[in-house]
């Protein structure tokens, strides 16, 4: 994911993001994508509004756009009362929903989500996927990593990675058929078992 976002150089091979080459066009790529990770997403010591302004600016939005879109965002997420509070004081689930909304504020072509729902409660996890679905409906391509196997089933297509190798790539339904498995967890278990790194 870091290579695709232009943050790390590949050792070999090629890739394009939104038509841009990941070696040559890293700046153009950065302007076409949104990125959210579980670890770093928002500044804890800035308020909700300040974070929106900051990231809106980073993603190249004009002040007027940031204000309009920011207000809509705050309303959609029901953050009216918290808009002037520090992000650090919000519950984890709210932070994650806010971080995602900020990552798509500039309507990127593609949004990369690196384990966005780790440790979040089951209700918030589902609200989070509602936001992802809404973004996909607007035409944004969503590239997400997760280690919750049940979440894999929300995706149109998934690739299963074991030790740096793509072991399977297909729709969840077809993968389950192929492995005669009842769940994605079983599919992954079949793929990963015995394939564990020798140097583990």
């Amino acid at each position: 994911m870091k290579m695709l976002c232009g943050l790390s150089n590949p050792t070999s091979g090629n890739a394009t993001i939104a038509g841009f080459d990941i070696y040559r066009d890293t700046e153009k790529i950065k302007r076409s994508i949104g990125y959210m990770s579980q670890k770093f997403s928002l500044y804890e010591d800035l308020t909700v509004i300040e974070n929106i302004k900051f990231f809106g600016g980073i993603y190249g939005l004009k002040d007027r756009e940031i204000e309009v879109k920011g207000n809509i965002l705050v309303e959609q997420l029901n953050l009216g009362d918290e808009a002037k509070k520090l992000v650090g004081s919000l519950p984890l689930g709210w932070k994650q929903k806010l971080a995602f909304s900020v990552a798509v504020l500039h309507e990127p072509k593609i949004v990369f989500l690196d384990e966005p729902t780790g440790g979040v409660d089951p209700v918030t996890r589902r609200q989070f996927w509602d936001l992802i679905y809404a973004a996909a409906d607007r035409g944004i391509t969503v590239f997400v990593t997760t280690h919750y196997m049940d979440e894999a089933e929300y995706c149109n297509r998934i690739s299963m990675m074991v030790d740096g190798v793509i072991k399977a790539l297909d729709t969840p339904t077809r993968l389950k058929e192929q492995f005669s498995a009842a769940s994605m967890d079983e599919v992954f278990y079949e793929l990963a078992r015995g394939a564990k790194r020798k140097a583990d």
Partner: protein
Amino acid sequence: MGEVALHNLRKTYNKDTVLAVSDVSFTVKKGELFGLIGPDGAGKSSIFRMLTTLLLPDGGSASVNGYDIVKDYKEIRKSIGYMPGKFSLYQDLSVEENLNFFATVFNTSIEENYELIKDIYVQLEPFKDRRAGKLSGGMKQKLALCCALIHRPVILFLDEPTTGVDTVSRKEFWEMLKRLKEQGITILVSTPYMDEATLCERIALIQDGKIMSIDTPEHIVSQYPDPLFAIKSDNMSHLLGALREHPLVKSCNAFGEYHHISFLATSEEVKKELLSLLADKEFKNAELKPIQPTIEDCFIQLMNH
């Protein structure tokens, strides 16, 4: 009296403005495998830190192995093993050095209690000279468990041992816990993964510092208030919204391939009517089948009440 007993245990942070653990009471029996299930910020780690005498409670009381967590902290520290959520071994010591260190701290040796950790340690032995910081997630977790066990504790506290660990290692870890339980060790384990709840004998579902339910996983599932169904069709994301707006639908939640749905009335006519209604819209190939609720269904239901 239980091996671990909590009475209205309370913990606040930030000068009483944040209530992390809200008057929690429960008992864990000797030799039990007990799970504390809840998301980040629910209060799991605060409970573990109070029980392991690393944090003082702001109200209530608790005993561990018959000892008071405030008065008798020295006795408790001798008789328990604790594996914190964050990897806390010495990254720049080797596997063997870490284990030796923890054995020495507790006035024992690897040899003395080797039998207890043998099953787990044999998997680590090929890497015993490797620095702990260079191990994979699954191996770190196994080493941390060995270090928590090396003084043969009566009670084991494991705070989110499987978070961030791959599926295969997670399964292996639960197998290890079962074997430890057979040796008579009482185990308290916390996890944010709802699917791991069924591997415990009894569980407490915790949210916002409060226990929502304590029972065996089977009992919690059997107390789900409504018949539950799984539904799928084309356009799953739109289906969710459409079903939630339907007047006869009580709840509808996304569960991967299917949505889980309960009705205000569950006659056959209701279901037929719903399916034909869906077929008229963009939701072709609709399928509806009765299912057993999972712990996650129960958790969501309890959270919404």
